[in-house]
């Protein structure tokens, strides 16, 4: 068992390095200025600029160099932790449904809708802080779960039909969410697309006032622990595992397939629904997404990298958030576009889901040899 684990980790690591290498090469290519100088000089300058950019990319969430000295980059570090929170939550949501063999990819829409609904509560309701925040989180969760109803229904009628329905729901949730936001809580005074300020009682507690590092991280880690526990230590977790592994056997063993498919998707939707709200009530104090932030899509990557294991989700979420923040800084201070991150993400997914790449007869045989022939 242990050897299998480390092989999987090595594989993930190798793919990450590959993706970073490709990104590196791409950046060098984009820096090549063939028009003005000789090729060699052009290449050196490209390397220099790329190395500068990548240095910033890979280290900025931790450190920053100012007048020749290395300081701890609290600003970026806080951003890193803040960004990890939504990714843990959407990563958990997707890990859940993937564990049950369901391809409900609606985390993006569930998150967005949940965030909008939570924002409404943040604006219109006034309660003591603790109650207010709890209510906001609950409403976000319920809204997210609500977005899962139709895909869940579809999946019960015909397996795999939830893919298109959930993808459509993403768009629907986005457009409807923006509509409701504009209609009811839009800030008329500002020129941008954003809501009015949230009520003060909705303000989510922060670790640090200055850097606005909010406690959502704690919530996400707690939830990761809870979901891990549910999946590994309870009988419900066993049922989900069976459904994801072989639903015929699960049904044969007397498991209520339909009931569990719906349950797992509602739960997943609820978790995804809370993914976005912390950033809004903790960091921004108002709703200001004019386009969908993409946490739901990242959640898919997080889940795949974590092999659907809730304990590894925070790790992959941290990695993805790290490169996100790093890339944002890189984009701010150099000419390299932060969209590089998407390229890295894509390469990671493509190689990770290619089971056949690692499932060849030879590879399997070498793994078996490593584990030893313990059973005749």
């Amino acid at each position, binding site marked *: 068992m242990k050897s299998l684990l480390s092989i999987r980790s090595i594989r993930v690591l190798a793919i990450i390095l590959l993706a970073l290498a490709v990104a590196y090469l*791409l950046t060098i290519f*984009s*820096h090549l200025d063939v028009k003005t100088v000789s090729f060699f000089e052009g290449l050196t300058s490209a390397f220099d600029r790329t190395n500068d950019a990548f240095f910033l990319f890979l280290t900025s969430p931790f450190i920053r160099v100012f007048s020749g000295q290395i300081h701890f980059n609290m600003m970026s570090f806080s951003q890193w932790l803040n960004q990890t929170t939504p990714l843990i939550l959407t990563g958990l949501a997707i890990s859940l449904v993937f564990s049950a063999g369901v*391809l409900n*990819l609606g985390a993006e829409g569930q998150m967005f809708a949940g965030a909008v609904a939570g924002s409404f509560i943040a604006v219109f309701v006034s309660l003591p802080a603790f109650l207010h925040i709890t209510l906001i989180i609950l409403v976000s969760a319920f809204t997210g779960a609500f977005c899962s109803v*139709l895909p869940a*229904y*579809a999946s019960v*009628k*015909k397996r795999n*039909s939830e*893919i*298109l*329905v959930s*993808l*459509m*729901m993403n*768009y*629907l949730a986005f*457009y*409807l969410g*923006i*509509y409701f936001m*504009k*209609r009811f809580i839009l800030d008329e005074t500002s020129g941008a697309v954003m809501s009015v300020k949230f009520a003060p009682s909705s303000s989510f507690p922060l670790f640090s006032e200055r850097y606005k590092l909010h406690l959502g991280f704690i919530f996400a880690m707690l939830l990761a622990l809870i979901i891990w526990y549910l999946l590994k230590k309870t009988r419900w977790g066993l049922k989900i595992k069976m459904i994801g592994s072989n639903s015929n056997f699960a049904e044969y063993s007397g498991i209520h397939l339909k009931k569990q498919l719906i349950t797992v998707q509602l739960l997943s939707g609820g978790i995804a629904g809370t993914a976005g709200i912390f950033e809004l009530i903790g960091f921004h104090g108002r709703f200001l997404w004019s386009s969908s932030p993409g946490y739901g*899509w990242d959640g*898919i990557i997080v889940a*795949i990298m974590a092999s659907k294991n809730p304990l590894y989700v925070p790790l992959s979420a941290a990695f993805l958030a790290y490169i996100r923040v790093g890339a944002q800084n890189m984009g701010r201070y150099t*000419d*390299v*576009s932060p*969209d*590089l*991150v*998407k*390229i890295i*993400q*894509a*390469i990671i*997914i*493509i190689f990770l*889901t*290619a*089971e*056949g*790449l690692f*499932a060849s007869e030879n590879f399997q045989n070498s793994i078996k040899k490593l584990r030893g022939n313990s059973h005749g």
Partner: protein
Amino acid sequence: MVNLIDILSNPSFYATIIRVSTPLLLASMGALIASLAGTPNVALEGIMLFSAFSGTIVSALSQSLFMGLLGGLASALLLSIILCVFSLKYKANIILTAIAINILSSGLTAFLLSAVSGQKGNTSSFQSAVFPQIHFVFLEKLPFLSEILNNQNALTYSAYASVFVVFLLIRKTPFGTHLKAVGENPEAAVSVGLSVNKIKAMALIISGLLAGLGGMFLSMGYISWFTRDMTGGRGWIALAAQALGGKSVIGVTLSALLFSTGESLSYSLQMANIPNELVQSIPFVMTIVVLLVYLKVSDHRERL
């Protein structure tokens, strides 16, 4: 309501439908071919985007429309091949791989956009060639229809021609027959010696090329530059159109036209007080409703 009649009686409304249906129709035909072969191509959005970018950049650099066309098609081919290799040969989940390609395309185009043009929003500094509009003399005489059908873009006419071509391909060629065999009963295909993987790969590549053409319309049709994420979900709507239209070329075409009508309507209605977002959500609502109804009905039918 008065507004509606004004809108519907205006020939430019219908001309707009024809115009905006161009990328959608091409991508929908691609979705249809892939779906018939049993390999849904969820990467249409990403392929369209990438071709839109490559086409306009290549044509700007080479100052030639033809080179731009080739560049766009080549990039569509590249992404399609990646999809084929990873999902068919390495047994990756085709949906997840396709989503990865969409993300790749979004990131790559935005990255190259700023790297190549120095701008972060669009490539307007690069003057690319555009596909010409075509004027048919014989259409001049027709009242009302001439304004709708004449002077559309070359790619628009190509899109409608592609419907015809795809129809012939599916109904009248051996390849079309093989496509259906592979999609409906791969065992039957294997039993007569057909290579299932080869046919699926061909289907994916063709669907990618069609999507690529559709993407190029966006950046080389009426405007001559590329903007970030300019496909705006059209690839997904194409999939929705295919889900609605099923296996028939006519069904998919009509569905695509339906969605295009919605889009054209949204432009007209922007004058009226109906919020943009609600109109834009129409295709998605439609798809969900139709899908759910279809599921309920076939479930009911099986019980009988």
